[in-house]
């Protein structure tokens, strides 16, 4: 089950390729969403790619991730099946949740992508349950949970930090701080917006880093995952990043006035793909793009030609 550590240049190319793949998948979703074939609210990951990619690159295939509703990136970075994801967005029987979940409820158990929740902070405690199970079974697997900056305002975040610290669980908390909970800035929501410092109170490491720098994410995640695997307990990683599009949907939203176009463009200029430009050569990017686009074509074709689920209830079930 162990993932071999690739050579340095291979790793860089791999990280860039993964980010590129997530971005191209979502660009395609964005491009064809108006056709109304995907009738499920997409919370696009655009702008966050370095976080999921950097973290998942440090994990073994038998480690697990618990993403939140902005989960497309995590699902793909951990090795989730692209065809099943797109089929799910199309509401098809072949979808990863057989048409019951939609964009907000992706899952790929084979890849270690655990079910995601549309309730903010919903799966933080699930990850602790997985980590507790690994501990009980004397397995050296690690659970990673990701969530936005809004989730830390929920009580269950603090409850779970305490429990994980108390039991020294093999768990890594990954906060993707994109500054906004839907359209409300963190300064209007949090008295103490240094999220990573919540770990201090429970006596485990917390740090803040540039979440658009995939190599930085990778390095910090590697340290945290290794610590968890050694049985030394959890870590809290706060990655600063930025959501390029609206909270939910395919559009830009600066015209709402809660953030300026200048702010969006400023963050875009230092986005994960821009920052990671030197991780792969132009020729490599061209080759990867062609490969990725072929995969996307095939996955859309698969999704669109898949059947819809037929019956709501099993035969004979009570209505």
């Amino acid at each position, binding site marked *: 089950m162990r993932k071999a550590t690739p050579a340095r240049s291979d790793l860089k190319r791999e990280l860039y390729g993964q980010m590129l793949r997530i971005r191209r998948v979502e660009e395609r979703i964005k491009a064809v969403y108006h056709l109304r074939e995907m009738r499920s609210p997409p919370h696009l990951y655009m702008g966050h790619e370095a976080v999921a990619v950097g973290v998942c690159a440090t994990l073994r295939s038998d480690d697990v991730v618990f993403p939140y509703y902005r989960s497309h990136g995590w699902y793909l970075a951990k090795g989730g099946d692209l065809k099943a994801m797109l089929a799910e967005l199309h509401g098809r029987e072949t979808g990863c*949740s057989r048409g019951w979940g939609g964009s907000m409820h992706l899952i790929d158990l084979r890849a270690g992508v655990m*079910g995601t929740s549309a309730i903010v902070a*919903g799966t*933080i405690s699930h990850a602790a349950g997985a980590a507790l199970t690994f501990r009980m079974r004397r397995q050296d697997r690690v659970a990673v949970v990701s969530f936005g900056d809004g989730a830390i305002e929920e009580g*269950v975040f603090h409850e779970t930090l305490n429990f994980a610290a108390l039991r020294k669980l093999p768990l890594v908390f990954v906060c993707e701080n994109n500054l906004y909970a839907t359209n409300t800035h963190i300064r209007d929501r949090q008295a103490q917006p240094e999220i990573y410092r919540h770990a201090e109170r429970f006596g485990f490491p917390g740090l803040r880093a540039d979440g658009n720098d995939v190599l930085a994410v990778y390095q910090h995640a590697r340290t945290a995952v290794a610590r968890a695997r050694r049985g030394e307990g959890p870590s809290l990683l706060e990655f600063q990043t930025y959501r390029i599009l609206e909270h939910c949907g395919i559009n830009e939203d600066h015209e709402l006035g809660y953030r300026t176009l200048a702010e969006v463009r400023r963050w875009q200029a230092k986005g994960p793909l821009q920052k990671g430009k030197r991780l792969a050569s132009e020729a490599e990017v061209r080759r990867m793009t062609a490969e990725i686009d072929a995969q996307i074509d095939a996955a859309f074709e698969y999704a669109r030609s898949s059947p819809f689920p037929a019956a709501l209830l099993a035969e004979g079930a009570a209505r």
Partner: protein
Amino acid sequence: MKFREAVRDATIQAMDNDPTVFLIGVGIIDPRAVWGTLSGALEKFGADRVVEGPLSENALTGICVGAATFGMRPVLVHHRIDFVMLTMDQLVNHAAKWPAMFGRQQTVPLVVRAVVGRGWGNGPQHTQSHHAVFSHIPGLKAVVPSNPRDAKGLLIAAIEDDEPVIYIEHRWLHEDNAEVPAEYFSTPIGRAAVVRHGRDVTVVAVGPMVSESLKAAQALEQAGLSAEVIDVRTLRPLDSETILASVGKTGRLVVADSDWSPCGIAGEVIARVAETAFDALKARPVRVTWPDTPVPSSETIEAQFYPGAREIQVAATRVCESRADKGVVSSTVKHFEGPF
């Protein structure tokens, strides 16, 4: 065997049988061991399988959901069902949704054991039953044992079940004594029990109202009325078949629930009968439920709060249009006497 000993028996045997079963909850390593219902578990199975939880009920529930999706069978214990209200996000939005929401790729074999703390002036926040709250949600099951045998059998069935089950345990019944098989056995979830056969009126009872209904039935018999008493045992899925068969025979229905009326189990039972067997009814059904107010603490008003055998007898008599409501009985259950 006492009711509380039957709960303990089921727990220990289930943990012996299946290494994936573990206990978790606030205060479960307390030397009092949840009124003795977990006595010896910590000593026998150790802190790895008797997991003390911080006062973080919602997180503990999510931790159980997470563990359950990895094949564990957690039993989450609450000293009061009122505390389960802190966990509604994980129970309703997560545990109940997880199997369906991901196309039935995972199961959530979770048991929430929740104690109703009636007695000794426990007041509005320590005595609620919430039978109906948990019976409304697709993806949850709810059971309410009324006697020591079912306390054991239903708990084992709940632990064996692959879906989340709320096990509602009335502390009021903890000291009740009855014969309970020593071996490992389960009482099927979703099946009511006819605990007394009768001809004239069907009394459908929930939890502590079962023994009250049996007392009422005795008094009714002296007045020449033959009551059939059904212990629902499972609130969800509700066993309509047993209830409908009985009402089909008697044509009269009283439902006795130790919970509030609005949107409740008693109303649900009557609705199912009305929808399916309206023509069998010879009289309007009657609900015997709690008054529409929180549960009070002081004994004088608490005594006015809880309906019992007397109210059931009066209701059944009324349904039978008989004038035999003389010589009414009163409830004789032992009262819980502190400290909490």
